[in-house]
């Protein structure tokens, strides 16, 4: 008979969350015990002994009211402070984090790795490597939850959400969808396998038969006709895409925006929303409905791989997208 009472802790942040949880539990137990004890003790000691007794009135005590308002509030501020710290830490992935892409769709998780590997409801990660998961939804709101890592983030359609963690203990852990999403919500579950570096490299070598995500993106770029207007090195009807990713772009409206994942996704699905300065609106067609979230991510990885003039194009490389400082397949720093 299995009776687990506490989840495994398998990520760098898990123990912080657990300590905060223990602190909250301790305060709760102490407060509850005090109240229970006081009620119990008063009920017993001051139980009615005669039908006619009338206890003298005690109206109140300002000092006591202040004390038991301020002191609990100060304790609660410690909860707030500590919780905010953990939340902050969770919010920004370190720059050397390895990218993984997770698309939630009724009722499965489709995972893509930059090296082209794809999985359904399974996630393989190496130990002690920060992992940044980009989350997208094909349909309704889902939520990507790994209890052993103490991380969770809603997956909202229409945009990208980011979550990150560092796994610290090899093993297999639950992956759950944690936002009700329809019929098979409770079936939208899977496993996260945390492996040592060696094991992970071996697993990766089993690689994606279709090429890396960037290569798949490059193929789509041709198939969907993007190359017609967006040429790599010379001006076409649309902006040059080499070096675009991560740069600041001036829009027709005068605003400047960062060309990040969300911007690229929007440019493909709703090109007239934010038009680059110097280009006319209503020339690029929308690809809404013709492209899945997974394909969008492949295109984004491809565009990301288009480094500044001088670097060899992706197809000439051996399946390694040219992101600085890091080999995405092994997580090692170059």
């Amino acid at each position, binding site marked *: 008979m299995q009776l687990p009472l506490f989840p495994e802790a398998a990520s760098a942040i898990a123990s912080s969350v657990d300590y905060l*949880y223990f602190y*909250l539990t301790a305060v709760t137990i102490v407060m509850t015990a005090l109240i229970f004890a006081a009620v119990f003790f*008063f009920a017993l000691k001051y139980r009615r002994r005669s039908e006619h007794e009338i206890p003298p*009135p005690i109206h109140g005590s300002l000092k006591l009211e202040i004390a038991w308002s301020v002191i609990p509030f100060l304790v609660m501020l410690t909860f707030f402070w500590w919780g905010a710290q953990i939340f902050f830490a969770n919010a920004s992935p370190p720059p050397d984090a390895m990218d993984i892409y997770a698309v939630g769709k009724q009722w499965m998780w489709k995972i893509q790795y930059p090296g082209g590997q794809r999985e359904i409801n399974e996630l393989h990660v190496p130990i002690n490597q920060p992992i940044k998961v980009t989350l997208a939804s094909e349909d309704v709101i889902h939520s990507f939850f790994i209890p052993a890592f103490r991380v969770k983030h809603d997956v909202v359609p229409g945009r990208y959400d980011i979550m990150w963690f560092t796994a610290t203990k090899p093993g297999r852990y*639950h992956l759950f969808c944690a936002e009700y999403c*329809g019929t098979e919500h409770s079936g939208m579950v899977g496993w996260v396998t945390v492996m040592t570096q060696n094991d992970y490299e071996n697993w990766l070598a089993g690689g994606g038969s279709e090429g890396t995500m960037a290569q798949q993106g490059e193929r789509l770029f041709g198939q969907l006709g993007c190359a017609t207007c967006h040429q790599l090195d010379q001006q076409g009807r649309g902006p040059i895409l080499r070096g675009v990713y991560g740069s600041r772009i001036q829009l027709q409206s005068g605003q400047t925006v960062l060309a990040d994942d969300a911007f690229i996704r929007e440019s493909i699905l709703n090109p007239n929303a934010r038009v680059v300065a110097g280009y006319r609106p209503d020339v690029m067609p929308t690809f809404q409905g013709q492209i899945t979230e997974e394909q969008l991510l492949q295109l984004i990885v491809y565009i990301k791989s288009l480094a500044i003039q001088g670097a060899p194009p992706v197809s000439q490389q051996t399946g390694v997208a040219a992101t600085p400082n890091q080999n995405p397949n092994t997580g090692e720093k170059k």
Partner: protein
Amino acid sequence: MSTALQDPRVVETPNYLNQEYGWRSWLFTKDHKRIAVLYIISITVMFFIGGIFASLIRVELLTPQGDLVNSDTYNKFFTMHGIVMVFFFLIPSIPATLGNFFVPMMIGAKDLAFPRINLLSWYIYIGGAAFALAAIVLGGVDTGWTFYTPFSSTYSNTFVITAAVGVFIAGFSSILTGLNFIVTVHKMRAPGMTWGRLPLFVWANYATSLIQVLGTPVVAITLALVGLERAFHIGIFDPAIGGDPILFQHMFWFYSHPAVYIMILPGMGVISELVTCFSRKGIFGYSFIAGSSLGIAIIGFLVWGHHMFVTGMSMYASLYFSLLTMLVAVPSAIKVFNWTATMFRGSISFDTPMLYAFGFIGLFTIGGLTGLFLGTLGVDVHVTDTYFVVAHFHYVMVGGMVLAYLGGMHYWWPKMTGRLYPEGWAKFSALLVFAGFNLTFFPQFILGYLGQPRRYHAYSPEFQVLNVMSTAGASVLGLGYIIPLIYFLWSMKYGPKAGNNPWRATGLEWQTSSPPPTYNFETTPIVTEEAYAYHDQKETHVG
């Protein structure tokens, strides 16, 4: 052993129950007491319907596989359990029943400010309930009681609009009740009944009414937009055309968070009445309890984002909401401390209403403190959308609100019906409720931290033992609800007659007969003492 006093001299005086007979005298009544009885009946029916869904959920969850019913059906079970319990039981419960009956009496008035609007409120409630029941009978709704978009607006194939209409209509019942109470408390107090002398139950209902009036219209418009979107395929919340599903959540929770204070504040008001009566002592910190009711009402409008910490809301918004959530806990804590302090050097008796008050104080403390776990950002990321949340809100809603409701029903039963309930059975049921409740919901805290998500039809096998414990507790809890239903009904015919003031409580409602006459008081009372002036009680005799 009950300390309620039975008066052999009481005869069948004309009262609101026997003044007129016939279904017309009930369905067209303007008497707030009769309307309260109408509500008691309808709310009890809805409670048991919601309870049946709860039982079905717990039976399914005995095994890890989804083997009792299919997924769609299960999803409908938890949705309808939520909708019925939240909108048709918890929100109206105490204000529409005990509030309707006793707020006018407690302030020395003949009735509420707008008696016909009061009756209209009840009809509107029934109309809303009809739509909700129609949604159930036609095939059900499966969006969760929270109706999140785009699932509810675009993807669900169930009777979402019907259910949303039911909730929309019921919202108006809530608004009108709140409106009625606000005007009543402002304008209909008897001479000498100053704000500072109001019983705390009145303060609690007043604060609740403020929330009802200000918050409910927002959920009305939110659900109206979802309904319109479904009907006309427009896409206000549809991301594919630029709609924002998170906007729905902001609008929904802007009401639904204050709504939980609509549910708990009247319960807290009841506890203030019970603790004073059964300690035979004035409340400790009257102005703090009254003020904290208002404080909860106001601050409660400012914390809705704590339901949305993992949606990708901005960091600053998240910090703000977490901080305010800590703040809103303070007035609730003040109440718990003041009630406990009231018992200090009191004269405590252990009648059933007091047992429910004890239960409330303990369970609400746990429930409220676990709310802080959820308001703490770092921990919330792990436990939100898991059974931890389910456990938290059932602790405050059932361990708090329902216990307060039962306590209030037992306390005021002799006044409303003129009969005493059987104390032995009542104490037994109170213990069943307390034990059953804890067995049902405490394991869910553990399940939540382990990671079992909410709204799961099938779960991972290692969670089974805790789920079985929870279901076992639910059976005990269910029994604890059914037994009072039986003995309350039994007491109406066979219970010993109660006198005017079987508990020797202060309060204007006890100065008139049990049951009260239709016009509440023979002559308009003139108030000269503060609330809970137990020390001024002379050697009282019944009547």
